[in-house]
């Protein structure tokens, strides 16, 4: 079909020039040596990759992994009951769903800033607590791991609600009724019947949260205030302040490889498209 090949032409240009070529260059940089004034130069080497095994960088990778896993777990824990509430609502389901999506459509930067506004020393929470007299000095709420975790959970929470809701909605209500008829209490029904049956939605939600959290840059940068360095910050740092492009490229390639494997493993378990 000739029409089709013409139509896909811009996509091929997009894919080769704006997606594959940049990654190929990063791959090449990861195999080159750092230049004297930043940039890259000969000779070709694999040494940059061995630096990834430095305990300092391994620790950053591990931190990112733990942070992303914690954010994913919290998102699932907070998102599941919300999805259940929407699925069981008799009216206004669409409104409830849109209310979940609404903050997601707001600028990510603005959403992150909202937490700076709430958490900083002169922020709303500290000001209010000081005024009531519960505390006598501002609590260090911002610029720590907790703030980053909070920012990530807030940022990606809708990603767990939607897929879980989708599986709950498709679930046969007779299953829950059967469990109740057989004597299961409501909580038992949720934990032993509904939750296991919504596994596809839970897995989809977990992947959709874990992948962006793993490579998060803006949230740790703004809410962690330089103290919480995650992989994303390491990449940025290597390309700007440290001017070590080869090592920054190595970290990027490692991050890319990680998310690709995750996505591939996830897509293998699914028959329908992701979105």
């Amino acid at each position, binding site marked *: 079909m*000739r*029409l*089709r*090949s013409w139509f*896909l*032409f*811009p*996509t091929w240009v*997009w*894919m080769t020039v*704006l*997606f*594959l070529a*940049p*990654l190929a*260059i990063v791959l090449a940089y990861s195999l080159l040596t750092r230049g004297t004034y930043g940039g890259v130069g000969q000779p070709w080497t694999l040494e940059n990759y061995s630096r990834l095994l430095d305990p300092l960088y391994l620790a950053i990778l591990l931190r990112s992994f733990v942070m992303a896993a914690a954010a994913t777990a919290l998102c699932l824990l*907070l998102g599941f*009951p*919300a999805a259940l*509430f*929407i699925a*069981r609502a008799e009216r206004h389901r669409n409104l*409830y769903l849109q*209310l979940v999506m*609404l903050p997601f*459509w*707001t*600028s*990510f*930067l*603005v*959403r992150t*800033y*909202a937490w700076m*506004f*709430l958490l900083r020393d*002169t*922020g*709303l929470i500290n*000001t209010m607590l000081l*005024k009531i007299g519960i505390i006598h000095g501002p609590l260090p709420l911002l610029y720590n791991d907790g703030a980053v975790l909070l920012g990530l959970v807030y940022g990606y*929470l809708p990603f767990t609600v939607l897929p879980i809701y989708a599986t709950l909605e498709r679930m046969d209500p007779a299953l829950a009724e059967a469990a109740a008829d057989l004597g299961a209490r409501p909580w038992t029904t949720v934990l032993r019947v509904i939750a296991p049956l919504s596994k596809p939605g839970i897995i989809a939600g977990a992947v959709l949260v874990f*992948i*962006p959290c*793993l*490579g998060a*840059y*803006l949230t740790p940068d*703004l809410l962690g205030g330089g103290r919480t360095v995650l992989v994303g910050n390491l*990449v*940025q740092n290597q*390309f700007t302040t440290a001017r070590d492009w080869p090592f*920054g*490229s190595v970290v*990027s390639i490692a*991050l*890319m490889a990680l*998310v*690709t494997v995750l*996505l591939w493993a996830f897509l293998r378990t699914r028959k329908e498209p992701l979105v």
Partner: protein
Amino acid sequence: MKRWLAVYAVAFYAFLHLPLLTLAAFSFNSSRFTVWDHFSLTWYRAMFHDPQILAGTWNSVVIAIWATTIATVAGTLCAYGLWKRESRFITGGLYLSLITPEIVTGISLLALFQWIFRWLHWHLGLYTVVLAHVAFSVPYVVIVVSARLRTIGPTLEEAAMDLGANEWQAFLRVTLPALLPGIIAAALLALTVSFDDFVITSMVAGVDSETLPMVIYAMARRGASPVINAISALITVGFGVLIILSERVREA
């Protein structure tokens, strides 16, 4: 159980919406501190007199319009092409591009531009930002338009061909008009992701192409300023309007 869920839902929605609502509320506070004084539009006035904010907004609008136009055309054609015949390679590329961490997209595009600049003595500027935005918004367009194509189904076009239309006529006069709501929704989505992006933009922007998110970021880094609250409130409302419009169009 039911009551517990309802109580939880209230807390859940409060958690989702209160941060933005209080942020917006304090944009109308006359005081620079987070203690409510009285209603005032000081920070909105300050915003409209800040040359950096104005220049940033202008740059963001120009970039978003260019990037959206290019990405929408490319993405729509792609969705149609894939709808005619699946290509695992392209679909895989689109997925991969979607899950690539922003910071990696940013540095890889920067690396590409720097590499090209070795031969051409150009500089980073608005056009590099536009290209970067096209790079990350094409997959969004493809997804939205593809969803619309799936709901239309192939029958319309087959009917047109049976009635004697050739491929082009069937596309231009039957599929494209039916697809239009999806295309507009996709364009609005691309517009919002372009207008919002900070991470990738900050890597590939030149000195003369600071965007609004870059200005906000710099202000947020410097410390508290109620002006950011005012911009945030306006952006939130603006995005809200765009999204509601896009939902309306998509449902039409």
